[in-house]
Structures are given as C-alpha cells and as structure tokens.
C-alpha cells in the first residue's frame, strides 16, 4: 500500500487519536473484555445462584471435559451443523442464486415485487416473523396445512429441525440474492451471448461462463451467511430449542444452560467454543477480503 496520505485536514496525530478513542473504548469494553472474560469464566464453576454465585471456584478445563461427554452438547453441535448446512450453505445459496439468475429475465414489475417480498422477510423484526411462522406452521388452522392438505400437522413439534431450516432459508435468502445479482451484473453479456450462440444450454453457461466470474462472490457469500446462521438466535423464538432439545442449536443451548439454567461457568465454556468457531470462519473471510484489495 503506497501511502501518500498527506494530512489534508491538518488534524495532527494527537487529534486523530482523540477522534478514534471514543469508538475504540466502547469496542474494547463491549467486545474485547467479554471475549477475554469468557476464557476466565469458562474455567470456573460460576452459577447464577447458590454458593458458587458468591464464591466461584477455579476448575480449570473441567467444563470443557464435561462438554465433550455431555450428550446434550454433542446433540446441539450436530443440530447446529445441520442448521448451517441446510439453511445457509444449501438453502440460502441455492435460492439466492436461483432468484438472482431468473429475475434478470422477467418484467421489471415482477422483479421488483419478488425482490420486495424476499427483502421484507429479511428486514422485518425477528419476533414478528417468528410469530408469523408459528401461525403458518400451526396445526390449528395454519396456512401450510391448508395448502398441503395436511390438516392438523404441528410442524414445529413433529418436524422442528426441518421447520427452522426452511424458516431460516426464507428469512435470510435476500442477502445471497442481492450479492449474486450484483455479481451477475459484472459478467460480460457478450460472453453469455457467444456461449448461447454456440448452443450452450443454461447449465453449460452457468458452469463455463458464470461460475469463473463469480467464484469469489460465492466464497464470500458462503462464509458470511454461515457465520450469521451459526450465530442466529431466532430458532429460540420458534421452538425455544424443543421439543426435548430436538431443535436446540448452539446459541439456544447456551441460553438455556447459562442464563435460564444458571450454569454461567459451563455456559461460558461453550461460548468460548463458539467464539473459536467464529474466529476460524472470520479469519478465512478477512484473509479473502485483504487479498482482494
């Protein structure tokens, strides 16, 4: 990076540091301190109530050992993997790309309408959309049962994981759609045209012309939506992790164990594991971002 940054505004280093300071202080207090604190708390038997609340003991790696053998934790890790794989890596990516690809060749008005629906699903407050889905999937007159002629099926109780995976695909596809339509806009139309004249079908065009151009976008998109889905708390609003832990993804597991169940030490250890997984995904992403600048 060549820096010819003559200080045009004449701020001076000292004033510049002063302007950055408020932001840095807040970020340190509410992002750095909690992250470091997790490491410490995760090694104690801290609880919300009882003796351990007043006088927590240092227990070393005991919480992590307990986590490895805890069937609920392992179940939750597996469900989280299913959730990310099903709703983000497959659901949102495929739906987002399919929308971006097809909406190029429909009338403007239709395009605008479909995009508005997908975007609204993305930006409406989570507790509203959660209730909309509770009503939609309800066995008591829910619209899905009316459409599929499956009267009385309680989707959230009978198929909780499938429900939250479809829900999150519905909720989050907008981002992939926007990213891929920006990416497709950068594919030279002349190349698509000549592929079409050479008789390439849709699939061949996608594989040979489009994919090489948008490979970077696909990677960016996958990393970001995986990170967000992994950290998504909205399954809690639909099922609260139930019935009987059947849809308890990691964030919900932490909430139920630590803040509802009061096991703050154990919950912190799990939080730390989550932070590590986030770190791995984010490192990939930041490296990608730096390479492309």
């Amino acid at each position, binding site marked *: 990076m060549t820096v010819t940054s003559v200080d045009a505004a004449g701020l001076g280093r000292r004033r510049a540091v002063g302007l*950055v300071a408020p932001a840095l202080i807040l970020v340190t207090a509410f992002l750095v301190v909690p992250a470091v604190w997790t490491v410490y708390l995760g090694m104690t038997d801290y609880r919300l109530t009882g003796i351990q609340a007043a006088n927590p003991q240092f227990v070393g790696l005991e919480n992590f050992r307990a986590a490895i053998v805890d069937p609920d934790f392992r179940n939750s890790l597996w469900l989280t993997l299913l959730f990310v794989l099903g709703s983000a890596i497959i659901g949102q990516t495929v739906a987002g790309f399919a929308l971006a690809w097809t909406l190029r060749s429909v009338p403007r008005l239709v395009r605008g309408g479909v995009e508005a629906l997908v975007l609204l699903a993305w930006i409406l407050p989570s507790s*509203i959309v959660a209730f909309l889905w509770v009503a939609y999937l309800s066995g008591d007159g829910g619209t899905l049962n009316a459409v599929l002629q499956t009267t009385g099926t309680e989707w959230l109780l009978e198929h909780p994981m499938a429900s939250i995976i479809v829900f999150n695909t519905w909720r989050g596809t907008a981002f992939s759609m926007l990213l891929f339509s920006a990416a497709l806009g950068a594919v030279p139309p002349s190349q698509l045209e000549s592929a079409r004249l050479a008789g390439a079908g849709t699939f061949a065009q996608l594989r040979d012309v489009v994919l090489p151009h948008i490979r970077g976008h696909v990677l960016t998109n996958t990393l970001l939506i995986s990170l967000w889905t992994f950290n998504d708390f909205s399954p809690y609003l639909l099922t609260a992790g139930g019935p009987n832990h059947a849809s308890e993804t990691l964030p919900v597991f932490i909430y139920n164990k630590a803040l509802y169940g009061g096991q703050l030490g154990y919950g912190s250890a799990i939080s730390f594991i989550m932070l590590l997984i986030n770190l791995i995904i984010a490192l990939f992403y930041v490296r990608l971002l730096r390479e492309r600048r």
Partner: protein
Amino acid sequence: MSARMRASVKTPIRARSVVGRLAIVAFVAAAVAFWALPMLWLVTAPFDAHPGLDVSWPDWTLDNFRKLSENPYAFSSLKNSVYLAVGTMVGVTAMAALAAYSLSRVRIPGRNTILYGLLLLSSIVTGTAAMVPIFQLMFALNLIDDRSGVILVLTGGLLPAAIFILKDFMDATPKSYEESARVFGATPLQVLRHVVLPIVRPGLATIAVWALVNVWSDFLTSYILLRDPTKLPAGVVMYTFYSEGGQANLPLISAFSLVYALPVVALYLFVNRRYGFRFHGGIKS
C-alpha cells in the same frame, strides 16, 4: 466441447426457449408463494373481528387496534424501541464518522491492523456467542435493567462494521476540497463539519438506516439485560405476548405486529425509492 457438438445437431432452439420460459414462470410463482404465504396473516388478521391462526378474508374491523391502545405495555414498548434505536443510531453514526475520518486521513501507527482487527472482532464476538460474559459484565457494572446499558452494548457491537464501511466513503472523497478550505483558514474541525460531512452524507445515511433497522428488530440483547416490563422494547414484548402460557391473545398480537412492522416497511419503501436496494461497490467479491 459438448456445447459445440450439440449446436451442430441443431437443437430446436425455439422449443427449448419455450420450455425455458415456462420453467422461469413456474419458479417465480413458487418463489412468490414461498415468500408471501407466511406474510399473509400479517395483512389479514389485524383487521379481522375474530382472528385465528388461519388466513381468511377478514370480517373487517379496527377494534383490534383499540384493544392494542388499551394495553399498558404495547405503547411503552414502542417508545422504548424508539429510544434504543435512536440512541444507538446517533452513537454509532457519530463515533464511527469521527473514527473513520481520522483513520482515513491521518497515518496512525498500525492503522490497517486496527481496521481489520476491529472487523474480525465484531464478526467473532457476536451478541449470541458472548451473551454470558456480556450479561456478567453488565451485572458487574450494575447496568442490568438499564436501557442505556442496552444502547452501550448494541453500539459497541455495531461500531466496527460501521467504521469499516464509512472509511471506504471517506477514502473516496477528494482531499483537494479540504486543502482549499484549509487555505482559506478553516480549522480542522470546521473542515470536518462543513466540508467532509456534507460530502459523505450518503454514507452516514446508510449507516444510520442500518443501525436503526438492526436495533429495531433486536431481541436477544434486551431480552437478557432488561427485567422491568415497562422498560422492554417491542421485540421482547411481542415475544412475551405469544410465549407466556394460556390462550394467545390474537387480536392484540396481530394488531401489535402490524404496528411494530410498519416503520420497517416504510423505511424499506423510502430506501428502495431513493437509492434502490442494491449492492454497488460496498461488498466487493
């Protein structure tokens, strides 16, 4: 290769394009159904005299909104949401603008490390992953059940990405304007206020809207940090309306959802008309 061979066999292109059109129409129809069906309830139930969980042509009434206005928590929760959203928006926009400006213009040692470090940090330490230590921290600071505490936590979480995006906007503004202003004797802070801020206004608007929508729909932070029902924002009150035992009060819930959703819909329409909902340069491959 295979493509070229097929061209020589002379596929009836006309027939294939008809099939292609039909496939597109079918896909778009399926997508509309998939995205619209769950939202229908939000349009019909609030105006139905006897709303159930089903979607049906409403038995028109505005009575649900009267019931809503009589509920003690509904109005206060919307006020709380406005307070949290506006407070966070002002804090994030102001602090991010100052930080982004000086990071863009002055060579502070380790500038790039700070920027990427910040971005990395905010993607890792999310509200969900860090809910336990954040709860602990606020407990230690005696900020549980305090709305300013929620604003601080949300601001801290949104700042890094806001700084990152705003720095791009600041980098793109020509430095010659500032230099001329300096020649005419403006102080650095006058330059910032009268020259730089007006130029980056679209960037500031982006950050402000983004922060507003984020906080307006936030659930978890307030859910873990606030106790007193009169302090809860709309997102949490909405959840308590339908999760607390007993028969869900559907007239209340439906009217409340609509009122709580409307600002977001209005903001969407505004942004869409004014700027268009597209990624331009912001997120590059």
